[in-house]
């Protein structure tokens, strides 16, 4: 179902005879690369063909075929469709694939995630530790033959709940009454547990610099319970005085297994789960997932639904950005006052969401081939009022209060700089990438939905510091207002869904990678269907997670007090970082 256009024009098979072949499985696309040639292949793809941006890297466990596959999605930052390539290795431990860190440093956290959840060893990765689970956890949970203690069945709805309703508690089925399982012969009294040492050792690698001076470095942990980490994020920092020598993000404290649960859910059941990824912008998450599955199904939503989707996605972006600006100011020390300005505007947008979907935050509004409900009476007038009258005024007011503020400028200009080259190398996305001078916006680079119809500018700023990352959010809010104004004017009548509302959709076998420009950056979904009721693989390319790859390098050399501001300017949401 994916458009095969780009790969046909590139004759990569002739370039690497014998080691690169087109992927000819039904519904699949891209190239299969022999693992010996992977690094040289990636170098050619990046340097000669210009695919300089690694969007997504993930593993897939093909248990019946006895294969493990790593899938790479690369794009050009100048725009246009992407290129997919894959490496297949036999499914016998140790499963080894060369690391793409030398070519695409943005692979760092994604390779660690694939190692953690699927047990694929990336040879040459400098710091291959678990990233979401803790060091010492038994097994690699996303493998198809790994089951947790509460495991019931491969696919929902579970027979214990439906249709006869003989509900049984998962607690009653497990010996400990809890969702834990231990290896046979495990003796908790004799075992030693040490989930932290590996982290500290990896931090110490950077501690041995030969300066000729005897300096005593200090290790500081911030989080996971810390008021400035936007949730349960943790950073381990090595300090020289107050200057940061190295910083490692530590996450997984909110890892709630979206991908494992998603493989058991039916396609439609995953829709409300996407709400809980980036819980500040549920409509955008819905959008990405709906697009991906629609790609597989070959469904196109009707006109009215397309317009409603755009309006909702842009309202989400505004709600997210005012919140992000407020929190950034919190982190810079203006405790809660600027935030209340942001929260006020967000509340008004949440009222609209509540009217259309029934819920303030977890909207669950999009469906495959349309949206769940039409706009209720009076809502369009409300959106009209917000977009034409209130928001432009309020955004100007907020900017006037912040942009020229002496303290804000001193604390943010020139701090936490991310250069344009580094932003691409580390696969940064969204405002983080655009504030570094790369005008890359999926809405323009590869338009989805009906974004090609609207007139708007891709916001871009060039200094890549905290200040620019704050100001670019103002710019983006203004562009979103422009889009909403056009969409509200042109909103046609008609049906809101192309299909009958059903619980179970038929999804043909194949793979699809759908991406949208979420408020945090490029949000991608990689879904594999085998034609059954549940997806075989459901992977989320989370912008917050991958943006953190650049966090350590951005902070090195700064003072400890500025780290909080840098983190605030990246704008992460832990639901999406940890998934």
């Amino acid at each position, binding site marked *: 179902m994916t458009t095969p256009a780009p790969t046909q024009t590139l004759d990569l098979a002739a370039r690497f005879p014998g080691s690169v072949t087109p992927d000819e499985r039904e519904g699949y696309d891209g190239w299969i690369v022999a693992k010996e040639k992977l690094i040289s292949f990636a170098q050619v793809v990046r340097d000669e063909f210009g695919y300089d941006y690694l969007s997504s890297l993930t593993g897939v466990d093909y248990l019946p075929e006895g294969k493990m596959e790593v899938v790479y999605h690369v794009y050009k930052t100048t725009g246009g469709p992407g290129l997919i390539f894959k490496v297949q290795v036999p499914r016998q431990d140790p499963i080894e694939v060369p690391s793409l860190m030398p070519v695409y440093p943005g692979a760092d956290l994604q390779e660690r995630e694939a190692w953690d959840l699927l047990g694929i060893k990336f040879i040459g990765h400098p710091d291959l530790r678990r990233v979401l689970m803790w060091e010492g956890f038994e097994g690699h949970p996303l493998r198809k033959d790994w089951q947790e203690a509460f495991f019931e069945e491969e696919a929902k709805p579970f027979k214990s709940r439906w249709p006869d309703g003989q509900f049984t508690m998962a607690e009653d089925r497990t010996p400990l009454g809890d969702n834990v*399982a231990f290896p046979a012969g495990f003796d908790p009294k004799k075992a030693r547990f040490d989930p932290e040492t590996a982290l500290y050792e990896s931090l110490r690698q950077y501690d041995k610099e030969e300066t000729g001076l005897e300096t005593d470095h200090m290790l500081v942990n911030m989080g996971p319970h810390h008021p400035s980490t936007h949730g349960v994020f943790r950073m381990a920092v090595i300090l020289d005085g107050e200057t940061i020598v190295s910083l490692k993000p530590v996450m997984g404290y909110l890892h709630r297994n979206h991908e494992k649960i998603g493989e058991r859910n039916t396609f439609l059941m995953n829709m409300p789960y996407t709400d809980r990824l980036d819980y500040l912008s549920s409509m955008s998450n819905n959008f990405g997932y709906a697009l991906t599955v629609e790609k597989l199904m070959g469904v196109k939503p009707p006109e009215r639904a397309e317009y409603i989707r755009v309006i909702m996605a842009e309202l989400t972006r505004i709600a997210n950005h005012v919140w992000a600006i407020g929190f950034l100011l919190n982190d810079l020390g203006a405790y809660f006052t600027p935030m209340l300005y942001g929260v006020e505007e967000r509340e008004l947008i949440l009222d609209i969401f509540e009217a259309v979907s029934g819920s*303030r935050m977890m909207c669950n509004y999009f469906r495959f081939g349309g949206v769940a409900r039409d706009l209720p009476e009076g809502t369009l007038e409300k959106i009209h009022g917000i977009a034409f009258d209130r928001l432009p005024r309020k955004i100007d007011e907020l900017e006037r209060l912040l942009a020229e503020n002496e303290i804000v400028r001193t604390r943010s200009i020139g701090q936490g700089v991310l250069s344009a080259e580094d932003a691409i190398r580390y696969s940064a996305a969204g405002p983080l990438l655009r504030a570094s001078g790369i005008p890359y916006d999926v809405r323009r680079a590869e338009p989805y939905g009906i974004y090609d119809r609207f007139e708007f500018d891709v916001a871009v700023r060039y200094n890549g510091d905290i200040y620019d990352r704050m100001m670019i959010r103002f710019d983006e809010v203004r562009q979103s207002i422009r889009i909403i104004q056009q969409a509200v004017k042109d909103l046609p009548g008609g049906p809101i869904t192309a299909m009958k509302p059903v619980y179970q959709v038929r999804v043909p076998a194949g793979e699809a990678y759908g991406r949208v420009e979420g408020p945090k950056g490029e949000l991608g979904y990689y879904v594999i269907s085998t034609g059954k009721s549940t997806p075989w693989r459901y992977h989320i390319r989370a912008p917050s997670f991958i943006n953190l790859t650049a966090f350590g390098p951005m902070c090195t050399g700064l003072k400890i007090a500025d780290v909080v501001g840098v983190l605030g300017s990246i704008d992460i949401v832990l639901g999406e970082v940890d998934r």
Partner: protein
Amino acid sequence: MDSKELNSPGYDVPPELQGQVAITTLDRIYNWGRAASVWPMMFGLACCAIEMICTAASRFDTARFGMEIMRPSPRQSDLMIVSGTVTKKMIPIIVRLYNQMPEPKYVLAMGACASGGGPFKEGYNVVPGVDRFIPVDVYIPGCPPTPQALLNGLIKLQEKIKGQSIKGARWYTKGPDEVEIPIPILGPDLIDPRKIDQIKQISKTAKKAEAQP
């Protein structure tokens, strides 16, 4: 609280002194003060934390209930709002924070995840309910609960506080100040120190079952 509520029943205050004198019990006046100045811990786990922040912000405003002062340090807080999914990786920290809070302390499980695992209950890294490790005073349903629901839960907590008596309160009884909850260990899976013998037993029998066939 008006004087009618404050005055203990059965004592008649002369009309000329009403408004200046109140006859009440220590419990009543003490609980009145405590219930109206609960300091929640600034502690957000997941989606529910966003609704908690909205509740504290201008539109819903927990300051009306004396709860607007959120303290990041557990040493200064009375109430832990467990706002979101509790994961196995996070539970040792939550238990440690709970142990660090001074008595009297309260726990409010906000939302489906904190109360019982919610939509993520089957997840391999999810603790199905924070009450497996720390005692919960108020549960709030919802995913996430609306700010109104959270306010309702906080009012319920105030009612609970007002019903307590100094006589029976555990922080005034003799013996150790508070009962520390053993901190869970991250081993091959989450280990509850209170269940170590059971875990050993089960792993032993699992080994036997494996060896037999």
